[in-house]
């Protein structure tokens, strides 16, 4: 490989990364806008409507405000880790997007075979996503510890416990998907669900869809589970953060929210396939992003609807309800696959037999 080829390849990679990172940053900004508007609509009030037409410039104004605010670093804080913590929580949220397949395209017939639209179509894509998203715990832990203050450290320990607990049921939920698809590659999992809404994994794995999505809510610390980081409870682990570093935490939170929605659509809702095969003339990416947008709406809907969990209720839900459910469902799926009389039922969804 000559130097020029390498430079071209590097340029293509950089473009691919930008093509995913920039829309994510923009959509994070506008999800905050839609969140306020939707919650306003649910609660029969206006929501933000002053800056720009219909309030559309509000996210930019908010961003400007956060940039201009002073960043305060507490005198006794561990400076290096205090500044590193927001980055540590933002990084995994963005890096996880590297393996997400956004659809497949033959570039209007230029390529003979359709290519997967992902930065990297890893064979262990699902494990990669799990591994990377499990890193976001460090941002939380570091933020709490480096602030050198008692409320952040209490908040960070509580948040960490929550994230670790729900990660387990999330992982077990994914095991059932692997059992049906027979692959860890995200695009293969989508291919296994081709052929209309009846083939989607939300039919045989409906309880896992529920568990996965609610665990996702808990992982990102969205509303029914935001007991560790709300304003009334001294903001949890980011009490001491202000200005842009504070915004970085919320950027990570919204990024993780998009990620969970994307993953749920890919794993359980048929990814880029239309519910009826005839509708596949609409590009797959539109379907995938549409499903994702709907799930993001559901996140916001949760926020406007449910009261907050108490700490012990949250722990109970994770360990005593979700964990047995997921383990039980792994057993049920395994039983269906290998019992001679029952395998006829599950063969409909089984990609590898």
């Amino acid at each position: 490989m000559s130097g020029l080829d390498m430079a071209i390849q590097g340029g293509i990679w950089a473009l691919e990364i930008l093509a995913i990172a920039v829309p994510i940053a923009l959509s994070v900004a506008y999800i905050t806008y839609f969140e306020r508007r939707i919650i306003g609509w649910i609660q029969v009030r206006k929501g933000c409507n002053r800056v720009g037409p219909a309030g559309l410039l509000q996210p930019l104004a908010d961003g400007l405000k956060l940039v201009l605010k002073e960043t305060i670093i507490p005198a006794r804080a561990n400076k290096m880790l205090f500044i590193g913590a927001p980055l540590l929580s933002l990084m995994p949220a963005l890096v996880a997007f590297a393996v997400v397949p956004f659809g497949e395209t033959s570039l209007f017939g230029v390529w003979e075979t359709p290519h997967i639209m992902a930065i990297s179509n890893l064979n262990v894509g699902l494990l990669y996503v799990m591994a990377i998203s499990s890193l976001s715990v460090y941002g939380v832990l570091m933020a709490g510890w480096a602030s050198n203050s008692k409320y952040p450290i209490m908040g960070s320990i509580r948040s960490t416990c929550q994230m670790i607990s729900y990660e387990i049921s999330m992982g077990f939920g994914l095991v059932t998907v692997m059992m049906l698809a027979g692959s860890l590659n995200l695009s293969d999992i989508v291919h296994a669900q081709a052929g209309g809404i009846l083939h989607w994994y939300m039919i045989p794995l409906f309880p896992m869809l529920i568990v996965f999505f609610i665990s996702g809510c808990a992982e990102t610390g969205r509303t029914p589970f935001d007991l560790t980081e709300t304003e009334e409870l001294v903001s949890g682990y980011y009490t001491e953060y202000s200005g842009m570093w504070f915004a970085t935490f919320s950027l990570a939170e919204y990024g993780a929210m998009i990620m969970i929605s994307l993953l749920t659509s890919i794993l359980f809702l048929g990814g880029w396939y239309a519910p009826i095969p005839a509708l596949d003339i609409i590009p797959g990416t539109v379907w995938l992003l549409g499903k994702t947008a709907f799930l993001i709406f559901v996140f916001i809907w949760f926020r406007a609807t449910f009261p907050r969990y108490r700490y012990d209720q949250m722990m109970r839900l994770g360990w005593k309800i979700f964990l047995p459910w997921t383990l039980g469902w792994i057993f049920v799926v395994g039983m269906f696959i290998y019992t001679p009389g029952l395998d006829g039922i599950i063969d409909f969804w089984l990609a590898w037999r």
Partner: protein
Amino acid sequence: MLETAFFNLFAGLSIFAGLGVVLSRNTMHAVMFLIFCFFNAAGLFFLLDAEFLGIILILIYVGAVMVLFMFAIMMLEVNVSKMRDNFLQYLPLGGMIAVILMIEFVAASTTGVFTEGAKATAEHLAMDVNNTKEIGQILYTKYLLGFEIAAIILLVALVGAIVLTIRGRKDAKYQNISKQVNVRREDRVRKVSM
């Protein structure tokens, strides 16, 4: 060429991180260095086409073990001056381990596995070799017994840890959540005619 460059990068950074673990004064920094070291080790696995092992290393060690490790360290009270006092008493043991390791490394490096030609002949796996599948197949057939024994040991350790730490406190108050959820209005509110 690119591969060698990446190998040197990952290997160098993991040595740097390893030194950081030992030399940093702050235990929290030491833990962060150890995490960084694991990342570089995962990078080395990727270079060897063992992407499954690399990802699992990050998932298990970085994502789970080190978090709990950090919890433990945050709870510890580290008294540096007290540790300094007894520093020299560990020197003979540590020195012995260092010497043994050194001899092992030298012996391993002279066996010829690492010579210039041997490295070049190490072939890459084909793109369609799925290493998750290969590992699964060999674990559940050839090494099934060992695998199951390891699983049992882990289970016993898990149960043991719970048994050792659980304190059935008589004075602790619990809420019965199913009872709370099943409450109806009639149980709480009574209509009284005045």
